């Protein structure tokens, strides 16, 4: 198989490229070292669709932030995922910081962000009663939004797969080189205009492609530097968060940012699209690209800082803490496009905040650029819509009764904290690009995402995974690799596995 394009990385960036590529005729694949989509930076971030006032005017961040923000409403509808423009507030605590607030406002205007306003204390506290009494003013951006990064990534991937994109999971790219297409004699027809193909050496063998899209997140500099003399450098930057129980839903309605000040960029307090409250992130540079450990200092620090802008955050309702590593490129901007010395190697690199917002816009652009370069026509059978997971407990009673009559699995609640039924879990596993692990199920349909953090439902979800995947329970993992849940059968059951 020779692909027209191979995307490295199945985060929101990679699957966005894949989804928009699938609108063109051709063979495409996504190569991912982990067992599922959305396992890196995409799974641990602020889940914000940024309005776009933050980035330097003229930067790629500014451009794609705005474009992405404008794309989200329609994309959410096409992909049947929740998205809400809840609005963002950047809160100023000291009068002497006003120039900074104005600078942010003006940057937003320059970036083309609509409906920005500077509002005073009264209006601010009218909008958000829990804002600190010491707040002076705020930048109000009604176009700021929130989205579920898991569902956005899963939905784009499912839609790409529905339109024929292959997903190669558990496949790590070790090396990349350009080879003369003549080395694959039977496929001379696929020689590019340069007469070259990319040979992608992976942990599961070679993959050939006419073009490569580098969407490898915190690893993106490694792949870029394999093929280009114009080096880039990613500094992994860790961000720690705490997530509060949905019982705190509505503590803030809008995303509350702190005005960047002497003490750094500050932390945000935001509702999530599912009604939790999210507080974070910290920002620590580190060497390890995969060090997603939380730290005592980090968590204490962000709880303290968040209290500056939002009073009385009910931290006793914290249900989990987590950390993500952001791909910060030393130049400070996204790196998008082909390096001059590596044609048909297309970077979508250094995708840190506002990456979740920008990814669909970058993906669309990257797909269009690649298609033009390769002369790909539009895919006449492309279907850009995808059906979301059914959420039975949000249905009208008659509808729900009918659904359960048709499929009783939708009446069996497995995760009591989030109200997730067996029907949803089976659907999450059975789909193309389906869940293969507890975390995969959790990210798709939220079983285990709630206040008990999978204590009650994990044994049952393991059983369902085992049935659906046709593997013994002993092989079920939390998140692929060596993350098996259980060590052994107990002595009395040492015969064959339960399933």
């Amino acid at each position, binding site marked *: 198989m020779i692909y027209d394009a191979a995307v490295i990385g199945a985060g929101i960036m990679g699957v966005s490229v894949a989804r928009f590529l699938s609108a063109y005729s051709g063979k495409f694949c996504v190569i991912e070292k982990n067992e599922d989509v959305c396992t890196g930076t995409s799974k641990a971030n602020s889940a914000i669709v940024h309005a776009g006032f933050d980035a330097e005017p003229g930067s790629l961040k500014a451009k794609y932030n705005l474009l992405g923000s404008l794309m989200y409403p329609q994309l959410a509808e096409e992909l049947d995922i929740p998205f809400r423009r809840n609005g963002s507030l950047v809160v100023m605590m000291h009068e002497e910081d006003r120039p900074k607030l104005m600078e942010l406002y003006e940057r937003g205007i320059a970036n083309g962000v609509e409906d920005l306003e500077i509002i005073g204390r009264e209006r601010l506290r009218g909008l958000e009663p829990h804002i600190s009494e010491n707040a002076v003013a705020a930048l109000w951006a009604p176009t700021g939004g929130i989205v579920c990064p898991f569902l956005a990534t899963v939905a784009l991937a499912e839609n790409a797969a529905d339109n024929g994109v292959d997903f190669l999971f558990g496949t790590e790219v070790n090396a990349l080189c350009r080879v003369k297409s003549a080395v694959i004699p039977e496929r001379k027809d696929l020689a590019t205009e340069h007469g070259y193909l990319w040979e992608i050496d992976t942990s599961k063998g070679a993959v050939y492609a006419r073009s490569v899209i580098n969407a490898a997140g915190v690893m993106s500099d490694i792949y870029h530097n394999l093929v280009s003399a114009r080096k880039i450098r990613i500094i992994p930057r860790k961000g720690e968060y705490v997530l509060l129980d949905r019982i705190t839903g509505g503590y803030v309605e809008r995303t509350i940012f702190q005005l960047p000040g002497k003490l750094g960029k500050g932390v945000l307090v935001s509702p999530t699209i599912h009604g939790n409250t999210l507080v974070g992130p910290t920002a620590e540079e580190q060497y390890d690209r995969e060090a997603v450990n939380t730290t*005592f200092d980090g968590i204490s620090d962000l709880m303290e800082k968040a209290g500056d802008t939002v009073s009385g955050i009910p931290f006793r309702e914290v249900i989990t803490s987590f950390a993500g590593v952001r791909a910060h490129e030393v130049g400070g901007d996204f790196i998008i496009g082909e390096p001059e010395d590596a044609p048909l190697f297309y970077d979508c690199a250094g995708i840190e905040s506002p990456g979740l917002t920008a990814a669909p816009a970058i993906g669309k652009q990257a797909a269009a650029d690649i298609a033009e370069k390769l002369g790909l026509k539009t895919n006449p059978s492309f279907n850009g819509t995808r059906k979301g997971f059914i959420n039975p407990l949000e249905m009208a009673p008659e509808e729900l009764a009918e659904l359960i009559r048709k499929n009783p699995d939708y*009446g069996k609640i497995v995760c009591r904290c989030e109200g997730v039924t067996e029907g949803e879990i089976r659907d999450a596993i059975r789909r193309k690009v389906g869940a293969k692990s507890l975390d995969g199920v959790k990210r798709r349909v939220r079983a285990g995402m709630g206040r008990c953090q999978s204590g009650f439902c994990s044994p049952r979800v393991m*059983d369902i995974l085992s049935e659906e995947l046709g593997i013994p329970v002993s092989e079920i993992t939390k998140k692929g690799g060596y993350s098996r849940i259980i060590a052994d059968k107990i002595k009395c059951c040492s015969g064959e596995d339960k399933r």
Partner: protein
Amino acid sequence: MIYDLIVIGGGPAGLAAASAAHDAGSREILVLERDERLGGILNQCIHNGFGLHTFKEELTGPEYAQRYIDILTGKGIEYKTDTMVLDISSDKDTLIKTVTAVSGSDGLTVYSAYAVVLAMGCRERSRGALNIPGYRPAGIFSAGTAQRLVNIEGYLPGRRVVILGSGDIGLIMARRMTLEGAKVLACAELMPYSGGLKRNIVQCLDDFGIPLLLSHTVTEIRGKERVTGVVISEVGEDRKPIPGTERFYECDTLLLSVGLLPENELSKELGTEISPVTGGPVVSESFETSVPGVFAAGNVLHVHDLVDFVSEEAAAAGAHAAAFAAELKDRAGAPDTELRDRGIEITFDGGPRYTVPQFINPAHVSGPVKVRFRVGSVLKNRVVKVLFDGNCVLSKKRNVMAPGEMEELLLKEELFAGNRGLKEIRISVEEESV
């Protein structure tokens, strides 16, 4: 049809409540259970030690549950398993309760009842609630989840185990996993005393040579995919880790037994007043919550140590619920809300963190009232006094009182008979005078 009583939960509390309500005259009783069988958490508690108070013999959890299930079926009480209650509401005027439930076999069903007993039990506090720093690999289990995996599913969660917290389930699992061939390295407890019963410390840790590290906690979890080890540090009096005391334990499993939380999401949505201390509803001497005709008992009310006391408490709640249902059924119009005045709030000093019940209305007392409470720290050589309007009506000597062991006081009916105009009930824990 309107049931006399719907019991939410078919664990030990729900079973005892339903049975007692039947004894008290209710006939239309429905027990709703979310699991596939009755018995609740008892089904996975295959160790013995249950029933010493209730049946005067030592039973395993499933045996204890079966006694009650047999009583239930013997009385012909209706129950539905695999049925999850989504919502409970109470009509302000008629006080009729509506219970909405969902199941695979019956779909979405709405039931009505004169009275409801909340018996949903509790859940375990998770790692997330503790903010233990480190990675988020496989191999971190709450003790109850591990217990389910071993005793019901037949799997060993791991081979080298560290336990954080000395709650009873964690202690039981230390023994259980050792018997299944795992090596339990240590049990770390943040507090300077154990959170579990003394007998469990002796039988589950001491007997197997498992060290109990008091005033220690897990300060880091290592391992990107599966747990590879944890760091345990000593904590000071402020319960903060003491730098320099870190010690690494190589292990593949971390069990958490760090507290149980009454599961009151339904109660909160129903509008019952919740005690910030117990995490359960505030109740009167009849175990009635702030919503008339809604009663609560067992671990949903406050976390117990012994199932026998859950059964006893729930039986009382069930009987009171039956009485309420009978009264409401007989009454043509709206019930007399005067009657539901919850009375005097019990106050306390010198040690208790809370009492259950929180309120007593002397006019409603029929039969003895048991007041249960827990202390906030280990107390030695104390006298527990019950003061009615400042007069001591009961005094009980206690050599040792510990947070891990629930205390109880039996207030006889006669105490209230002559005290209908009572203004203050106070529980005072005092140092024994020498």
